[in-house]
């Protein structure tokens, strides 16, 4: 929790600053020049030392390049380190040109996509559009299409994806001559997926108080729109007893005598039901 700032910024030092021995004071003047040694000899000797050190293998990163003995990649990080470092989820990081958790081009598994729109909603740059594509069973389904001309590679979409079908890979080459080639259709993203590039194994740490879908029973008309559009099919319409004429002279509301029941285990909290509800009777909340 951040501490609220109570004191306005002022010029006088904070009382705590007066505590002796708390800060280091360099009152030392800079070192006296010592003649030829510090004028040229020492700097030249230092540079020569580095030169000799880096004769064999300079430690700065170089890009993959070809040698007479084949393609070589040198990086500052030793591959041993990357091998030994695993991720808490258990998936080890690969040893490639870059780390596995690099946020590069997306890979989309069209087969498991449930068209929940969460990636589109979570995108800060509005570069994701849900377009119609052909699903694995030949039926049309909505899958994300990503415009890399806008994408900032923040990874919010893959964090939001409830099924883990949209992930970011270590692929980083996107150069084209035509900006229209920067728009990756679901098919292209599926092609990236099929190349089996290392995919980001790190998942988002989520807060636990995720809200659930609640129903305002008085407003519901039992229209089935929510159950129809739910991507995970976790909403079932259950029959409710039709009340008899409660009071004489009062008409029963005109509705279908069903209401949605949400299976909270399967729900991915995409909010599609809320947005399609014609009567605004579904809302976010917690039971009790």
């Amino acid at each position, binding site marked *: *929790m*951040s*501490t609220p*700032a109570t*004191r306005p*910024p002022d*010029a006088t*030092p*904070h009382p*705590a*600053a007066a505590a002796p021995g*708390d*800060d*280091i*004071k*360099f009152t030392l003047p*800079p070192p006296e020049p*010592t003649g030829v040694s*510090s*004028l040229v000899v*020492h*700097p030249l000797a*230092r540079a020569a030392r580095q030169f000799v050190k880096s004769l064999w293998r300079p430690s*700065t990163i170089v890009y993959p390049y070809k040698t007479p003995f084949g393609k070589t990649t040198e990086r*500052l*990080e030793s591959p041993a*380190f990357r091998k030994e*470092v*695993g*991720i*808490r989820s258990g998936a080890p*990081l690969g040893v490639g040109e870059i*780390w596995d*958790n*690099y*946020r590069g081009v997306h890979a989309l598994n069209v087969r498991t996509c449930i068209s929940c*729109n969460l990636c589109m*909603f*979570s995108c*800060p740059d509005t570069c994701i559009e849900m377009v119609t594509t052909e699903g694995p069973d030949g039926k049309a389904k909505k899958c994300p299409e990503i415009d890399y001309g806008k994408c*900032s*590679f*923040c*990874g*919010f979409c893959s964090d*939001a994806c409830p099924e883990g079908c949209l992930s970011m890979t270590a692929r980083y080459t996107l150069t084209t001559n035509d900006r229209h080639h920067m728009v990756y259709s679901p098919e292209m993203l599926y092609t990236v997926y099929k190349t089996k590039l290392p995919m*980001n194994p790190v998942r*988002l*740490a989520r*807060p*636990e*108080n995720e*809200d659930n879908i609640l129903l305002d029973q008085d407003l519901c008309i039992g229209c089935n729109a929510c159950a129809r559009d739910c991507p995970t099919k976790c909403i079932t319409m259950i029959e409710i007893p039709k009340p008899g004429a409660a009071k004489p002279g009062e008409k029963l509301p005109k509705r279908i005598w069903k209401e949605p029941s949400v299976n909270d285990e399967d729900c991915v909290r*995409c*909010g599609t039901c*809320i947005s399609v509800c014609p009567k*605004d009777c579904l*809302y*976010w*909340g917690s039971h009790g």
Partner: protein
Amino acid sequence: MSEMWINMGPQHPMTHGLWNLRVKVDGELVIDAVPEMGYLHRGIEKICEYRQYNEVVTLMDRCCYVAGLAWEQLYLMASEQALGVEVPERAEYIRVTCQELQRLASHLMWFAAFVMDIGLMAPFGYGMRDRDVILDLFQSFTGARMTYEYMRVGGVRNDFPVGFTDRARGVMDWLEHRVDDYEDLCDRSDIFLKRCVDVGVLKAKDCIRTGITGPMLRAAGVPRDLRRDRPYSVYPELDFQVAVHDAADVYGRYRVRMEEMRQSIRIVRQCLDHLDKRPGRVMAEKVPRFVGTPSPPPGSESYIVRRGYPKGVGLSAMEEPHGEAMAYVVNEGGEQPYRVKFRSPVMVNISAAREYLVGYRVSDIPAIMGSVDICVGESDR
């Protein structure tokens, strides 16, 4: 040669960014200086009002491109205060680790640029090389080298990977040795001292009058460091010292930054020890919906109406690598912040350019402006 105005910038090697320094020179002597800012203005504060709390984090990395994680934390401290979110202790320690690593990276970058400004070729490579090691550390847990997007309201995105603390400790040991090395390299070079000592002097009184903060202020002998004077996050539990120098010139700023790097290494080590001992959550358990999880459905007005929304105001101040930064977030009960305002230390430090440039030579301008440590991304926003 008579007097003339020279535009140093907006495209100029001295500027380290996109701003314009108009200097009036008489031969080689600077007799007036007018900084002009605003060439890199991208309207980030306004864009923040159209983004949800977590999505603003992506802008913070673009805001300051050498200390992205510091600005993420700066913004999040304010917005967490506005939203009333408690951050778990482990997340705070991770954030402070990131902060200090970021300070190291920023100061190394500054070192590289500074020595390049006064014409030293080889140490430029050293500074960039060592910064790259820290960027590699960042990449191992954030997945990017400069645009991290790592912190979220209520904590951080993911925990450190297994084995990270050991590796980071190794890097710190190695870096500590390197910092000594650089001091030896520069302090024992006569020409370096001649270029730095008694150049760009700005005394404590003038620093305070012009609102200059950060290493520039500490180099003038004022022991002010927000990490100690107005502690935030878990800094009160950490043991470190504030580096102060009396020289008030370019040399003093260089020494203060070098010492700050040592102190940062010290802090990182303490944080790593703590992280090893105390596992736990890195994300708050309770975060308001639409803020904590990345699933903002449309048509959520009903939610706001039904549930009500926490309202509040958040103000955070932080010792950023460049100086004292502040963030102010107003939460009027919507998905997006109502208003976000930042105070950039670099903006203030550059604005006083006239105070420390006049009277020196044209050759001194790069050395002096290099010692200010400019990041135009955050000052123009």
